[in-house]
């Protein structure tokens, strides 16, 4: 199972949108995808149309080992290949458990191990803070994708995120590689990119190298519409807007193929 984390240490950078559209694209391509909502804001859970019942297991209970992993996974209507470990507000309370465990950065990885062999891809929507849950997400990931708004805030978020990733790798509690940076809300007026967006994307390119800059998500209301309606961008009549996710999904399926060959 290839585990990909959608990670940014500032809010509003497109983590959940990335996780959602990427997960759906991979499921559409025939991969068995396990989505993990690791953000107590639980937007991914909401966007996937899952209602969390008070006494039903969520990621909180999975991490605490109060339930078997299987009991925390839910199938989703509308897709045979998409599954979810949901979250709700109460996930915030996991911080103390993770920090007192002494091995918080590796707990989520261990909890997800039973899913190997059942799911091909696991996508984790990380919370937007340098929290214990975030560390555990980084520790669980094989690859990180960092969405970042094409603004100063977005560039700053990218820097902080990369610093945190490197810090955990230096401590040897994470081995995740950066799979790509996804410029988000890239502003274009007609055929022209705005100066701010261009400067920020250039700065991102200088920071991580051109190979790791993915095609950007243009600023567009259609993404929100697709999320609200629970449809794909293609179904809304905007197949071109799916391009960044198609490229990323191809990268990921390519990695899966390599993994299968080595095994």
């Amino acid at each position, binding site marked *: 199972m290839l585990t990909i984390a959608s990670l940014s240490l500032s809010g509003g950078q497109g983590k959940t949108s990335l996780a959602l559209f990427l997960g759906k694209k991979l499921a559409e391509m025939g991969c*068995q995808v396990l989505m993990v909502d690791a953000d107590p804001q639980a937007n991914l859970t909401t966007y996937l149309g899952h209602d969390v019942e*008070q006494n039903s297991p969520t990621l*909180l209970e999975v991490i605490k080992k109060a339930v078997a992993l299987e009991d925390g996974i839910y199938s989703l209507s509308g897709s045979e290949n998409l599954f979810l470990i949901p979250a709700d507000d*109460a996930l915030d*309370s996991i911080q103390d458990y993770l920090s007192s465990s002494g091995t918080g950065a590796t707990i989520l990885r261990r909890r997800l191990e039973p899913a190997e062999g059942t799911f091909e891809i696991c996508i984790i929507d990380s919370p937007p803070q340098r929290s214990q849950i975030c560390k555990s997400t980084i520790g669980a990931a094989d690859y990180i994708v960092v969405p970042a708004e094409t603004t100063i805030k977005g560039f700053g978020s990218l820097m902080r995120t990369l610093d945190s990733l490197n810090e955990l790798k230096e401590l040897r509690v994470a081995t995740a590689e950066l799979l790509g940076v996804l410029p988000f809300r890239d502003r274009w007026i007609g055929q022209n990119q705005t100066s701010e967006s261009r400067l920020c994307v250039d700065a991102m390119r200088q920071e991580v190298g051109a190979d790791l800059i993915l095609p950007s998500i243009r600023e567009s209301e259609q993404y929100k519409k697709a999320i609200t309606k629970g449809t794909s961008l293609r179904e809304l009549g905007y197949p071109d807007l799916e391009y960044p996710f198609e490229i990323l999904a191809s990268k990921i399926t390519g990695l899966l193929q390599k993994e299968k060959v080595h095994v």
Partner: protein
Amino acid sequence: MSEDMLSRIRKKSQRISVPTRDASLADERPMLELAVEPAQSSTQSRELEVRSIQEELDQLPAIAPRRQVRLESEIEQQLLEVCSREKVTVETFLEAAFLACTSNHELHLKVLAEAKSRLRSRKRAGMLRRLKTQLENIN
């Protein structure tokens, strides 16, 4: 791929029950809230807001008068870089470092030893500078 696990997940109509989750903020320190009384006029509303902000300020720790601090150049540069990167100020970094020392005896001793060593170097440098000035004045 384990179709068994997928089948079990898809078929789960009876799911295991867990205790009700508590997402309340009851254990947290009480959040400071601004007064939300409906204002009669914009002047009253502003006065209310100013008063409640003052109440909030009164609960925050007092800040001492500005103090000039002279650091070794290289350390100052590194400290400023760290603070800029981590988005904290030098003052808050020093406060936090001091508090970390007071709660860790071993660290406290280590820092004190380093500080005393640095003070000895500074005193020696001061003496050498005075001596140099005296020699130059003689000449």
